[in-house]
């Protein structure tokens, strides 16, 4: 089973990279670009085949390693 974890900064946390991207896009002539936020996406191949158990496992991985709860939030998607 495959899992996809999307990790982003919590709202309100400064995202210097996002800001710099927004700036650079404006510099390249793209108009109408407002806020830009950059996050991470982590794709995992899991041996687990049961969706509920897989989610539980990935949830535990996020808590233990993948996300930094002080400044980040995460979302988990599962796919076959």
């Amino acid at each position, binding site marked *: 089973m495959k899992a996809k974890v999307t990790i982003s900064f919590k709202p309100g946390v400064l995202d*210097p990279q996002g800001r710099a991207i927004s700036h650079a896009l404006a510099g390249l002539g793209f108009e109408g670009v407002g806020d830009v936020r950059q996050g991470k996406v982590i794709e995992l191949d899991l041996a687990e085949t049961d969706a509920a158990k897989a989610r539980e496992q990935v949830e535990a991985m996020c808590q233990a390693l993948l996300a930094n709860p002080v400044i980040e939030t995460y979302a988990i998607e599962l796919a076959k």
Partner: protein
Amino acid sequence: MSKTVPYAEGIDANVVRDHGLSESEYETVLSIMGRAPNLLELGIFSVMWSEHCSYKSSKKWLKTLPTQAPWVVHGPGENAGVIDIGDDLVAVFKMESHNHPSYIEPYQGAATGVGGILRDVFTMGARPVANLNALRFGAPEDPNTRHLVSGVVSGIGGYGNCVGVPCVGGEVNFHPGYNGNILVNAMTVGVAKRDRIFLSAAAGVGNPVVYVGSRTGRDGIHGATMASTEFNEGSEEKRPTVQVGDPFTEKLLIEACLELMATDAIVSIQDMGAAGLTSSSFEMASKGGLGVVLDLERVPMREDGMNPYELMLSESQERMLMVLKPGREDLARSIFEKWELEFAIIGHLTDTGRMELRWHGETVGDLPIDPLAQASPEYDRPWQPTVPARPASMAGVDSITWQEALLKLLSSPDGASRRWIWEQYDYLVGGNTMQRPGGDAAVVRLEDAPSKALAMTADCTPRYVEADPVMGGRQAVAEVWRNLTAVGAVPLAITDNMNFGNPEKPRIMGQFVGACQGIRDACLALDFPVVSGNVSLYNETNNQAIPPTPAIGGVGIVSCDKVVDLAFKAEGQPVLLLGAPEGAEGHWLDCSLYLREIVGREAGPPPVVDLAHERRVGDLVRALISEGVVTACHDLSDGGLLMGLADMALAGNMGVRIHLEGTPSAFALFGEDQGRYVLTVANEAEATAVIERAVATGVSVRKLGITGGTELMVNGEEGPTVAALREAHEGWLPAYMGA
């Protein structure tokens, strides 16, 4: 003052308490204001009178530190200390802590710590030329330690490397006493032209007050204040957040500020550090004896819906406040726009002596500046002197061979190489690094006076301070002085970072008072004034305080052609020991690294620092180095003589053979007697000359042996090879970090 209406609307005793103000402090607020403060004003009192900004527990004792010398240009009181280094140049430096934030979020906490101290230095017109860091972590076995080390180190590197300031030195200890409270102290050294120093005192009624740098967000607004009723119903977005560092913006800010500083546009300038806009505007106005009006809606904002309270209390990073000369606004604006930074005129100076805060034209806060600053609390907290530790039992000291003990010490958490850490720091950028991390002091050549260099180091031995704060404080300063001396530099001045537990406990306050006394003694005896510093108190978790840790950062000056390092240079060079006690190479094992790591006993009083002896030996060593007779030099500290020799062997990739009087004992080999240096000289004739000089100066000296071979030999007994020493020394930290 109206006693009947002690609170403004929406405020009660809980809100006051959440703002960290005691009842008596609130009484003083009422009498200063002549009315009940509103929430914005209360927030301002709260941060201005916080321990962090007001130094209320420590002020009384900090005042006792020596701060004067003919070469001191600005001592404590400015953003950083300033000393004259000749050639119309000054060195500008300071150390600052970011302990708590680094425990919560090690990467960002450490990164923003580096950002903050860099700003303190370039605010004064100096280009930062070097960073150092003094770190303390919990026991390696503590489940959090690895993660904290990894985060803090990559945060320091991530910020400093990006800004492009070489990180050339520092120190690291591991001890269970820091399990719940790590220490992250960062130091920056900058260089400026003597006549181009910028200060923070505002001047010129009517002059514009200008905000530059990043936008303001809801970063780091004090949690307790946010929990007050006013802010409780806020959405997720209103929650206070951890500060994230933006080193790219910091780099732009450095370049833009230095570019503007080359013009005549700036009257005064102040970084926005802790308590952001509040303390920066207060400080500028207060030092200038003026008032200020701020139109807060003009502050560049990162988020929608921010209010005056948040704008005044935000700790968003990479921001500065300046007072400009009238008519120079456009020049300044064009520079900041070129560097793609925010620029906003947010107010002007007045002669009212008041801080008037406006929000879309309406006055939302109005406070008297001087009374607030002057009434800032100063406590004479009760303190209890530390009872110096009793001599430790020496049972079991000889239960292990010196060969085994040496390898064990070299691979112990506090004895192991820090290479894994400093290789994550760019210590080369700038092309002026003469001595890299790993030696006694880092040496960085001066871009504008290339025949000279600054030497710098940061040190403290907390186990000594814990056992005897006075002696430990003295030792920290002496060790800094010694490290600078060992590379040939003339020590000039120090910055200190006083990390302690809860000052409301007389025992902890006693540690603080003792350390101040020790620092004072050493500064006076060594002509080594304190020019800047920082205090971090309340480093406690569950009633468990950290070991008292007055980290000392020192700066000295040296001619590039006189610099020596600790590496053995060639086979067959005589090895000399200077400054050893009467009748032995060393004898003080109490409170030593050996006693703790080998015997498992953390006990006994620290070694005595005899300041007259310290000075006599150091001055001789420095003279010998500057005369060019010394080929390598190293001062002895943790682990004593044998650890010192091992360091020299490792750096030079060469063995050494020494002979002690009598059988080698742990006392002689690993004792931590103070004020000792090991030197090598080119040949026997030089050795004889040095011995004569030492005898004539009243400095104890003995010839220990000779360099050469591939191993360390003591009295004919074979010791570990240099390769074995290296494996022990280099192995521990990478293995621990799982690298």
